[in-house]
């Protein structure tokens, strides 16, 4: 039942909420606008908001300088590849933890999470040497494996908390009916788990897309994703705000759009067991 809200209050809330939303969004909006300015307009004082000559010049310059689509394709490969691999390993593990918990389940989970606390820089040289040894440098496969491993704990945990909310009675009923383990998963569990899995996929794609330490240090060109693309524009000589803005927009736009369109799915599973 919606409570009655006075129009006055509603308008007040509207103003406040829009103000907060715009303040939070402002850096992105400003980057978007700046990406269509000339370099001189980008640093003009006082700043121009929309009253400038919109130009696509920056985007053109960037595309001639580095092939954006190559980097974007790599970002897609890496994030989807690591996510797929992650699901293959995480779904059974999370399922087992949720439906056959033991005393140690919680410890295992927390231990998994604690592997994420290792500072990556501390193990850069060991990993680099391993990559040299196995010829994995600048290969998508090598990076997919690394991204998969660093995100696996989060995936397991997210799925686990989601699975745990599925009532066990349903499973028991299915078992009584003599359903096999396989049937139990595919026919009973899967339909209920789909939203959680969808949300997990989204979060993992976002995390992989934005990972900027390993992707930068273990690639040169063949496997280099958008994080490396951005590193070529981060502080060149001369005025660069407009070009940096355009490159930034290109780097974040795909994931931002995907995120926006699927935010409902993302939010649904993004509870980590926080909601009972």
């Amino acid at each position, binding site marked *: *039942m919606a*409570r009655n*809200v006075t129009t006055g209050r509603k*308008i007040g*809330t509207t103003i406040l*909420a*829009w103000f*907060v*939303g*715009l303040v*939070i*969004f402002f*850096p*992105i909006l400003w*980057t978007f606008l700046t990406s269509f300015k000339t370099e001189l307009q980008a640093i003009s*004082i*006082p700043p121009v908001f929309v009253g400038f000559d919109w130009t696509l010049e920056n985007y053109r310059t960037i595309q001639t300088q580095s092939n954006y689509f190559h980097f974007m394709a790599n970002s897609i490969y890496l994030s989807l590849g690591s996510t797929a691999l992650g699901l293959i390993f995480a779904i*059974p*593990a999370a*399922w*087992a*933890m949720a*439906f056959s*918990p*033991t005393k140690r389940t*919680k410890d295992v989970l927390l231990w*998994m*999470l*604690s*592997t994420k*606390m*290792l*500072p*990556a*820089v*501390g*193990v*850069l*040289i*060991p*990993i680099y040497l*391993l990559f040299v040894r196995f010829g994995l440098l600048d290969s998508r496969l090598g990076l997919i494996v690394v991204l998969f*491993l660093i995100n*696996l704990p989060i995936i*397991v945990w997210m799925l686990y908390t989601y699975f745990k909310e599925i009532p066990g009675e349903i499973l028991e009923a299915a*078992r009584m009916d003599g359903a096999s383990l396989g049937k139990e998963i595919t026919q009973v569990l899967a339909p209920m788990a789909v939203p959680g899995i969808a949300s997990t996929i989204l979060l993992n794609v976002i995390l992989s897309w*934005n990972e900027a*330490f390993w992707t930068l240090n273990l690639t040169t060109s063949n496997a280099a994703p958008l*994080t490396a693309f951005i*590193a070529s524009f*981060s502080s060149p000589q001369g005025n660069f705000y407009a070009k940096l803005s355009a490159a*930034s927009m290109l780097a*974040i736009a795909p994931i931002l759009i995907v995120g*926006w369109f699927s*935010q409902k799915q*993302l*939010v649904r599973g*993004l509870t980590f067991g*926080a*909601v009972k």
Partner: protein
Amino acid sequence: MATLHTKSAARAMMAPAVIVLLIWMIVPLAMTLYFSTLNYTLYNPISTPFIGFENYSYFLTDPTFLAALANTLILVLGVLAITVIGGILIALLLDQEFYGVNIVRLLVIAPFFVMPTVAALVWKNMMMNPVYGVIGQLLQAVGLAPIDWMTEVPLLSIVIIVAWQWLPFATLILLTALQSLSADQKEAAEMDGAGALSIFWYITLPHMSRAITVVILIQTIFLLSIYAEILVTTQGGPGSQSTNITYLVAQQATSYGDIGAASAGGIVAVVLANIVAIFLVRLIGKNLDA
């Protein structure tokens, strides 16, 4: 029999994930432990004599070590404070009825999709630059002197940038929790004559406590190893005012090429992270009845 069967099945299902993570943890960790006892620099990779704990004493007596430790704590706690408090307030706001809820929601969650390097570059150059940055221009427009963020308040600047990135995550989780609070409960309290503030304090906040725990746990994991944002903005300075432990370790490896010291630093960081982890589990783990 059935339970035994499911138990072993469960173990088999968990095994692959546990094993790969174990390998991922142990192999680099063992190599790092080994390197941490060697005099190993990038410039002399051939002769790497064993030197025992020298790298550890070198890293721990680094004049910036304690400052880095303090900065790490300030960074983690600062971001947590902003995102949790800000997240609660914004969640409360988004839970109200107003025009354009869906669009405002999109605006608020957007920073979560921005990669850390881009966020740091945008804030450093377009927002916080004292001459061309929007914040400086706004301050000047109202007659105040612009702040030179990266020099005057370097650590605060990084806290702001990182908090901006994580605020959406906290808001989303807290909002979901908030929305699961039944309207009946609130209405019942309202009937009893409870004011908005006491409803928040006695009903809403306890209801969200679990969500707050989750936000703290997950964010701490990511916040302990902040690196890109510092590298892009202040590079740990001026002096060591914005150097955290991760950055200190990175400096050993990247600017000194000292793999021995970086490895020792890495091990120290792992130990510290585990202390935090134990602390976290004690403090809030109960809240997460797994």
